[in-house]
């Protein structure tokens, strides 16, 4: 199982994270932005699991991934609820229309 070096996984994790960031910044649909956040979380999970395998022994990394997934689920639920409320309020899915919090 050592066939694939850990660094490969880590590089992939970094790439996925970066793409998540770019999506986060570039997309205008609020749902899509939330999805970009999920993508970033997934990338991090991959890194955790890769490190876990590299460390060997006790699987603390997995525990962390577990919790990340659980909290991501909760966050997605609440986030979508908030998004629905805001969308209902502003009658638009474009995040740039949600600009009331200004000076």
């Amino acid at each position: 199982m050592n066939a694939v070096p850990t660094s490969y996984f880590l590089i992939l994790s970094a790439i996925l994270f970066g793409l998540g960031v770019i999506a986060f910044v570039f997309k205008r649909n609020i749902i899509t932005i939330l999805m970009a956040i999920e993508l970033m979380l997934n990338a991090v999970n991959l890194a955790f699991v890769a490190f876990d395998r590299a460390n060997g022994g006790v699987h603390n990394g997995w525990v962390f991934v577990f919790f990340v997934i659980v909290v991501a689920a909760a966050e997605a639920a609440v986030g979508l609820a908030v998004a629905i409320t805001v969308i209902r309020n502003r009658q638009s899915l474009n995040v740039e229309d949600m600009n009331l919090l200004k000076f």
Partner: protein
Amino acid sequence: MPKIADILWIIPLLPLAGAAINGFFGKSWPNSRVNAVGIGSVSLTFLAVLELVREFFKLPLAQTPIMKSFAPWLVAGSFRVDFNFWVDQLTIVMLLVVSGVGLLIHIYSTGYMAHEGGYYRFFCYMNLFMFFMLTLVMAGNLVLMFVGWEGVGLCSYLLIGFYFLRKSAIDAGKKAFITTRIGDVGFTIGILLAFWTFSSVDFGTIFMKVENSPVEAVGQIGVLTTIALLLLAGAIGKSAQLPLYVWLPDAMEGPTPVSALIHAATMVTAGVYMVARMHALYSHALTAMLVVATVGAVTAFYSATIGLVQTDIKKVLAYSTVSQLGYMFLGLGVGAYAAGIFHLMTHAFFKGLLFLAAGSVIHAMGGEQDMRKMGGLRKKIPVTYWTMFAATLAIAGVPLFSGFFSKEAILDAAKDGPHANLTLWVLGILGAMLTSFYMFRLLFLTFFGKQRYDEHKVHVHESPKNMLVPLVILAVLAIGGGWFALPTMIGGPDHFQNFLRPVFEAAPAGTAAVAEQANTEPVSPGAVLVRSLLAPGVIVALIGFLTAWWFYIRRPDVPKKLAQSVHGLYTLLLNKYYVDEFYLAVIVRPLLWISTNVLWHVVDENLIDGAVNGAGHTAREIGQQARQLQSGNTRSYAAWVIVGAVCVTVLVLGVWGMVR
């Protein structure tokens, strides 16, 4: 009943109490009650001084001077100033002059100021002045003396500007205060330097330390000379010598009693007193002594020239005061300290009398001060005339009058004394001639000749008794005040000089030598008498008198013709050598310009206001820029989050990379 020497503080504090009472409560009082307080306090002070003199004479010589410290005042590390008083023979002389002449002038004022508004204010200020002046002469250290010094300056300002609704009066008050302030800067630095050198400002300590210091010869500018010159700067301002004399003629804006008390008898003599008090210092700083004598002699001559052509009776007397103060400084500067103080005393008598009599004339003329509009008053106001005549004889130096003895002592020391200086003596002699001339000119213009006023408009009347009695008393003093120097004329001892000898004998080459000279010459009394009467001073006084008589009695047309023929010189003298205009252009205008354009516009408005306003402005601008961040646009926020994330990542990973 404690001895006065133990409660010395009562002498200055009585007038202070009088000032306080009149100042706070006097506004609604009738003149008589204000008088009771004002005159009463000064009378009690005079009585206290007499008692002090009595006790002083009973003390054996070894127990003088009386040094009493009543309370500590400023204590800061090694700097210590107490409320301590120093009473020696010099102090006694000054106390008698200040309180005695002061009392007479206060009594005179009850008549002169009787119909003036602000009566209570006048007496309040006059009493306050007495307090400060007495503090000045009794002080036992430089700082307490400076308190009195500044205080009399303040009272001078208040009294010059007494008629405060008159712009010329308040301007004159300001001018007096500011000009003396310039001298006071030097005085303050001198005090600091003295403390730095002697570690004390106490007279006892300073005199002791100075005695043990080497004498600094002429041309050698050591620390003693510097201190002496700095203190002299203050004296030049306060005693109206060149170049800081310009305030004294303007000070005539004040009521005439003020001119008599402050600007003839007492305040302006503070500078002379200070130099005499610090004689130990000056005797060890010969350059400074030379400066003192030179300033004195030059001022004496210069001021006399201006007095020759003035038309206002008080202005003539003002320039005369400046001139006579010059003589006092000349006396001190050539080592004749006792002579200088003697002249101070006689000057208080005859100049005080001259001013009070001039006030009487002005009162009689209903306010007129221009001598060209007077004339022939001799028969109409006889008491005023005779007293003024006595004073004129005194100031001119006519033999046997008080001024003769004092002026001769000074001129003698300038010619033959240990620090003699022939050039200065010549100036002194010329000044004496001019003095005699302008004083007799004043007398003749005012009291003799044709009546140059309209009798219907001016009702000439003699002054009331409360004004005339002080005149007569002062006249007696002006005539007889010099008689304890009389014995020198017949080869005997000079009592005044002997009295002051314990004060001044420490001076290495000073008065002691002069006194010895007078005593050791084995000549017949007759020869001494003749020699005294034919002294150069007397001769020039006679010349002055004769010239004045010729110009103003015999041939009254001569002055006008002379003025026209030397028109340039005449105008120069009439306009006081344009010194005021010169100061205005060279000092006052540039200062005002700098204050307005530099300090006000540039520093205050641009720098200080700019800094304060700028701080607020900058804060607002920063806020204005910072709030742009809150655009409401979520994507911007997202982008900024990324920026932050990048920064953190770079930092953390970079550090981790370094550590690794």
